[in-house]
């Protein structure tokens, strides 16, 4: 109750000493240690009553117990680390797989190219102007080379 708080030694600054009396027992002051303990427990309520904070309202000789910093269950850095790691692993896998595919494609291409060369040679013999069948049909001696090519042609 307000009447139980007595002020003394008032200074220019808003600072004061105070004692708390216990009205139930006959005007005896509550011991300092009890007041200290009570203030420590209810620091927040006292602060908010005055719209002040631990920094602006100071109780001499009463150090405030500090609230621990908020710590989430999984450290945040592990989450970020997991994201980064997944990205890297995905990148490596992608590059390695694409490298293997390119390698396979390259070997396939070289064999295809060899086949293509054969095919072009064969078409050249056709595009020479004189199709082989005509040559064959016409009388005359058959060119050995063309005959050989002819064989290859028919094997297709």
């Amino acid at each position, binding site marked *: 109750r307000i009447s139980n708080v007595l002020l003394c030694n008032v200074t*220019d600054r808003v600072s004061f000493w105070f004692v708390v009396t216990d009205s139930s027992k006959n005007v005896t002051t509550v011991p300092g240690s009890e007041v200290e303990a009570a203030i420590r427990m209810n620091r927040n309520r006292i602060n908010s009553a005055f719209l002040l904070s631990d920094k602006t309202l100071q109780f001499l000789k009463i150090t405030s117990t500090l609230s621990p910093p908020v710590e989430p269950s999984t450290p945040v850095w592990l989450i970020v680390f997991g994201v980064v790691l997944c990205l*890297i692993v995905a990148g490596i896998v992608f590059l390695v797989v694409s490298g293997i595919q390119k390698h396979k494609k390259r070997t396939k291409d070289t064999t295809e190219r060899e086949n293509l060369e054969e095919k072009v040679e064969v078409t050249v013999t056709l595009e020479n102007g004189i199709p082989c069948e005509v040559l064959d049909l016409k009388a005359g001696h058959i060119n050995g080379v063309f005959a050989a090519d002819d064989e290859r042609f028919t094997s297709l």
Partner: protein
Amino acid sequence: LSATPEITKEDGRPKWDNKFQYILSCIGFAVGLGNVWRFPYLCQIHGGGAFLIPYFIALLFEGLPLLHLELALGQCLRKGNIGAWTSISPYLGGVGIGSWVVSVLVSLYYNTVLTWVMWYFINSFQEPLPWSVCPLNENRTGFNEECYESTAVNYFWYRKTLNITPDIAESGTLQWWLILCLATCWGIVYLCTIRGIETTGKAIYVTALFPYLVLTIFLIQGLTLPGATDGLAYLFTPNLNTLKNPRVWLDAATQIFFSLSLAFGGLIAFSSYNPPKNDCEKDAVTVAIVNSMTSLYASIPVFSVLGFKATTAYWDCLDRNIISIINEFDLSEESIMRQNYTSWISFLNSSYPEKIAGLKLKSCDLQEFLDQSVSGTGLAFIVFTQAIILMPGSQAWAILFFIMLFSLGLSSMFGNIEGVFTPLLELQVVPKSTPKELLSGIICLISFLIALCFTLGSGSYWIDIFDRYAGSLPLLVIAFFEVIGVVYIYKIKRFSKDVKWMTGRKLNLYWQITWRFISPLLLLIVFMAFVILQTQKSPSYAAWNPKYEGFPMKEEKVYPAWVQAICVLLAVLPCVCVPLVALFHLTKKKCTSKDSCFVPSEVFSCQGANS
């Protein structure tokens, strides 16, 4: 019939997609962490703007000639480091091997620095930043003692990140969080270098250009911070008296040398993928100028932020004093402000001197706070992180800053790894059929396993050792032999003809003079000065020991004998390759007269190889 468009030329050598990629790779290799955290520090302690004078002289007579030499050499011979020097003369093969060893050693510890950057980066996503608050002690009445005595940033760096031991002989345990980050970093390096310059060429667009973007953002932000102008004035005010100190000239010469990443073999590897007819002279000038401009450009935001930090610390000091005075004299809140602090203090000192003395006020001097200069990891992880806490939106600034540091370091790592990778490919250590991916994977895996040593409690002491001994002295020796080898063994007349064939212009007199006389002489002087300075005092290190009386000051300790032996080994091993290989070939050939041994085969020439 057209051949499928491949990246290989007729001689089977990969090449750059375009010229810009090549220039960017060289710039990325040269521009590294040193441009951000070593150059501004040197500027500050060596008289501000006056330091630029020895810096540019060193650039002109040492940095630029050596850079041009390496780029021209690689382009001409179209081989990696070891192959190039063996081509010039088998006796000079040791130069290539020496720089290969240095590249290996530097790659090992450089990536661990990137590990620390990555650790800070992934911790920057929290609110509040973990290095801004001290953790509480057990009964929650106060803060953790080690943290309270030093600062929260110090605690986070030395305890939460490094978990540092008080002595280098105590190895401590492997820090699992650092191992995870180390694996990630080597994973990133593997991802980017998996197929040699094919993949680094694409990655370099990001890692080389992104830091400039962030530096610009920091520049704009830094200049708006209070106290930025104090920091900048402090940095750039020239003090010409410092030029009388030979230490300044030595620091300028070593800074330009290490800043351009010469003698690592990475530049030779990069330019060996060029088409032979490329203007290497213009490239060298471009890279050198961009590197120096970047150093200057980076020092502006760094010093704005440092000025801001000093000003904030000064204001904090003032505020603490003001609160003590107000409490003591029971004055009202707004009576003493920062502006009238000095007049109040003098008034109170004259009227109540005993009371003032009893308060034990700390003297607040802005100059003192500005003088607290740091370089290297201290700048990034302690000073800068502290400044970032004070900025609004600290998470964003922290994330940006650490990504920038990571990109800077990563692009330098590309050059280092290329210096290791290319000679191995050419020496055909592995059979030709093995894919490049496998070789780079093996290199990264082995490096990761060896670098695990740096994640021990004493890891950061070892990294300092590697930095001081493996990454400094051998490079000077190798560069010296490079110049001597090209100018006097390959003969500068031949080299001039080669360069003329490549660039289309006759070799300038400036290059002739610097290559022949000035650069070797300068290198010799720098080398001797370096050795003298190192041997003058017995090598010591500063240990973080919470049980030390002067804590939070660091304890000066001397290296034990076995550690000193390792230091010597690190410095001497790459250098000793040069005479060893020469000796090996000498005895192999069993020549009768020395002269005939040294004549390189006349058949070989730069143009002949490529026509």
